[in-house]
Structures are given as structure tokens and as C-alpha cells.
């Protein structure tokens, strides 16, 4: 029986999948891996379904010991992963022998790493997903949303495939140029002209006030001139501007409805990139239209099919 015993964990080590859908009208948030591209590669390396359950490790602090020989995959940020002290670079599947220890300790590049196992980690489906949302007490190993904890066991049922790696040309660059594509829409027409100019021509800095609900950006204060809003549905990646004018990018664990004006929403590819940025990183918004972003996204997905 394959399994991993967790020897180190923290509140940012979470079981995740593609997220929870079809329940947003009940006030249930989406959840799911913040960097869906890396999750998808971790799963793809093992021949898993794209949204099979993975471990999302943010910044580090996660360690396991193998209870039997196994094949696992690691993708995303380089969190100084090591097997019994020997460096293990991400974007590959690898063998972990019985008794060997895998540790992820600190961000060398990027912010989040995804660990996958053949067939996906075992976890109960809660409202159609095992995505851990601590606030809503949904998902995770116990179904109650808790983060992974020392002493818990991770298991899976799939057969071990051969090891392989993602060709460098197919890997995403982690927060390379810091450009975030923003699909213009929502209340963008109700912002001051000067604010729109600044939104797309000045840099913003990632604040340390960041979690799975949203990331606050610091930069020029953006001024909304429209009428007060009535709460409405909020999409993934919405760039909302509260009264202090500092934008917040809303992520997977965001609330389902809200009443702050929005410039639009980031593309899924930009969200994956943003999920790998650390506080202090500089980003810029680039305006894109929905139809072109959709085309680009569909084209990008082809690289998973080609692997």
C-alpha cells in the first residue's frame, strides 16, 4: 500500500484540486489550486486527470516520509525541495524510496509548489470537490477543510508510471516579466480617466496582505466615479477597487458576491503567474479583450495535450 506520512506541515499546506463548481449560488466559494498551470503539469506528469487532488505547498515547511517505494511528481515554484538532503528540481516525476524523506523548505523561485501522486491523493468529495477551504470547513483529508497536519497520511490508488520531465520550453516562466493581462469590463467605464491611464501604465507592488481570498496591490490610488454598487457575482481574478483606491485581485477562495467596483478580471494564465509572485514583486496590468484572451487561453491548453 502506497502512502506518505506527513512529518512537517503548516496552515498553507493544503489539499487542492480544480475547485468546487455548481454551488456558487449557495454562497460556496470556488477554492482549488491557485496556480492551476503547475497543478496541471504535476498531474500530467503522472497521467492523472488535470484536476486530480494535489498538495499545494506555499513557501515551504512541508515534509513527508515514504512508507513504500513510490513515484510522485513536483511542479511549480522551486521551494528548495530535497530528497534526503539532495536537491530535487520541480517539473518532473521522481521515485521516492521507502523511508526516504521529501522536504520543501523555502522559496528559491516562485511561491507555490504542487505535489501529485498517481491517480491523485485520496480524499472525500465534498460538494463535488476535495479543495480545502478552511473558512468554509469544506474539503481536505477529513472533509472539514483543515490544512494538512503532521502525523496525517497521504494515500492514493493509481499505478506508478515511469518518470519523466516537462520540457523547459513548455514550462511557464514564474513571474518573469510581471505583466498581468486584465480583461477589461465590469465597471471600468466608471473610473476617472487619469486612474485608467495609471492603472495600465504604472507598476503595482504586491502587498504582504495576501491570502487565498485575494492579493492586495499597492500603487497609484484609483478613483471610481460611478454610483454606489449593489452586490453582484464576483468572477475569479476580479480586480476590485475598494474606497482606498488600492486594487485587490480576488482569488479562488474569494466571497461569491460583493459590491466594490471592478476594472475587469485577470486571465487564468495571469492568475497562475500571480500565484507564483511573492510580496514586494512588481506587476503591471495590460488591457486585453475577452475574445482574444479566450483564443490565447485555448491555444495555451494545447501544450498539455501535446505533452
Amino acid at each position, binding site marked *: 500500500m502506497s502512502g506518505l506520512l506527513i512529518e512537517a506541515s503548516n496552515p498553507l499546506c493544503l489539499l487542492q484540486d480544480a475547485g468546487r463548481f455548481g*454551488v*456558487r449560488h*449557495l*454562497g460556496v466559494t470556488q477554492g482549488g489550486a491557485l496556480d492551476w498551470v503547475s497543478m496541471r503539469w504535476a498531474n500530467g506528469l503522472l497521467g492523472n486527470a488535470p484536476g486530480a487532488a494535489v498538495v499545494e505547498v506555499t513557501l515551504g515547511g512541508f515534509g513527508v516520509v515514504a512508507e513504500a517505494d513510490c513515484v510522485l511528481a513536483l511542479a511549480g515554484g522551486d521551494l528548495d525541495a530535497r530528497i534526503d538532503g539532495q536537491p530535487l528540481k520541480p517539473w518532473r516525476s521522481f521515485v521516492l524510496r521507502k523511508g526516504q524523506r521529501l522536504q520543501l523548505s523555502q522559496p528559491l523561485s516562485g511561491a507555490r509548489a504542487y505535489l501529485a501522486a498517481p491517480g491523485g491523493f485520496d480524499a472525500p468529495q465534498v460538494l463535488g470537490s476535495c479543495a480545502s477551504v478552511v473558512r468554509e470547513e469544506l474539503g481536505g483529508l477529513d472533509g472539514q477543510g483543515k490544512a494538512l497536519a503532521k502525523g496525517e497520511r497521504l494515500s492514493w490508488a493509481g499505478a506508478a508510471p515511469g518518470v519523466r520531465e516537462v520540457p523547459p520550453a513548455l514550462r511557464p516562466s514564474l513571474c518573469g516579466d510581471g505583466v498581468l493581462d486584465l480583461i477589461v469590463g465590469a465597471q471600468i467605464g466608471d473610473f476617472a480617466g487619469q486612474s485608467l491611464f495609471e492603472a495600465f501604465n504604472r507598476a503595482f507592488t504586491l502587498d504582504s496582505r495576501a491570502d487565498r481570498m485575494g492579493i492586495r496591490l499597492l500603487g497609484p490610488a484609483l478613483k471610481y466615479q460611478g454610483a454606489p454598487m449593489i452586490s453582484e457575482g464576483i*468572477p475569479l481574478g476580479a480586480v476590485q477597487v475598494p474606497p482606498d483606491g488600492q486594487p485587490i485581485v480576488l482569488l479562488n477562495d474569494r466571497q*461569491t*458576491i460583493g459590491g466594490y467596483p*471592478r476594472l475587469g*478580471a485577470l486571465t487564468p494564465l495571469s492568475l497562475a503567474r500571480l500565484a507564483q509572485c511573492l510580496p514586494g514583486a512588481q506587476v503591471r496590468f495590460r488591457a486585453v479583450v475577452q475574445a482574444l484572451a*479566450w483564443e490565447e487561453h485555448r491555444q495555451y491548453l494545447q501544450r498539455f495535450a501535446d505533452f
Partner: protein
Amino acid sequence: MNARIEVVAIDCLMVRLFEVIEESNMPWLLAASQRLRAVFAGNLVDLVPSYTTLMVQFDLLVLSPNEARGLIAEALTDLQPDSAGAGQSHEIPVWYDLSVGPELALLAGRSGLPQAEVIRRHCAHEYQVFALGFAPGFAFMGLVDESLAAPRLATPRKRVAAGSVGIAERQTAAYPAASPGGWNLIGRTPSTLFDRQREGFSLLQPGDRVRFVAVDRATFVNLGGDDTPLECPP
């Protein structure tokens, strides 16, 4: 009815049906929801209704934004309000008491009404569920009698007990689970509002109608209510 379709994300379009919050919006929003679900069928990822809008998330692997727009237009053609009153009616028991609803005193003070009259007015109206949000199963309902309207607490409580019933401006709601919260609390319901084992998960769904019924402490406890006094001061 003049609906607008707005871009909100790569796979989301906002259907804006109204500009102001009215109870009479709901039959239209319900009818539009049903039509959208039928027209999109399996290609609808999520549909998020709120007071005046419906956010449609479509499957971007199957539909282009333009195709989704076309389906929305088709769904809204010759729309008629669902005046048959789709959506269920609920009676929700509430134990109104200062120990679990300390702002009963505040609302009485603001309005100049006795506490018993505040309770009577809160129970007198059949509310509409406008939207769910904030937390799983948290239903925003209205409209509360103007004499009971009060702004949210300046400093939200760190912890509000599950079942707490509150008022914010002209809306009322019950907290399905313990959480931080800034609403004016007036009582507590023993009803389970969100249950992952229940079909549909949430007792209250958008478009449902709700009447609160005052019960005494013994009844509240018999129905499974937890009468532990609220710990956190406002």
C-alpha cells in the same frame, strides 16, 4: 424589461436586469435563471444570482464568449416573470432574546419601539431571499420594515454564534455557522441552514420566501438550539 450583458471575465458574463433592489425583481430573476439553466444545460459552470444581476460562468472549453452571449440573448427572449411563485416558502423559528440577540435593545432604542414590537415587526413580513453569499447558506433577505433598519456595527464581532439572526440596513439574515460578523443581532434560530447531506445543501435558495416565527427558549432548545449566551460584546 431591458437586460444588459456585460463582460466580467474570460468565461463570465453579467446579465444586468435591474438598477435598484426591489422585491418584485425576484420573479424575473427566477425566470431568467431557469431559462439560462435550460439553454446552457451542461455548459453552465455556475450561475450566481444577486439582487439585480445574474452572473453566468460558461464552460470555456465548449463555448466562445460570443456563443455564450447568443445563448443568454436566446434565454431572455420573451421572458415572463415567474409569478406562480417558484421558490419555496419557509417558516424559520427564532428565539428573540437579549442573551443571544443583544441589539434588540439597540433597535428598540433607535426606533422608540418596545422590544416586543421590534420582534413583532420582524416576524410580520414575508421576506424574499435576494442572494446567498458571505458564507455557504448565508441568505440576504429583505426588505425589513424601515423602522428596524440599522447600519452594521462599527466594529464587527470576532465571533457570531451559528444560527444568529441579524439585521443590516433593510436586510435580515441568519448565520449558518459561527463566523465573524457585523450585523445587529436580535435572536437565534435552531434551524440548520447549511447541511452538506441535504439535497440542495442550503435550506434557503435564491428566490425563496421566508417568514420568521418567534418561539420561547424551551421550544428553541427542543428544536435543537444552543442557548449559550453570545460571548463577544459588539
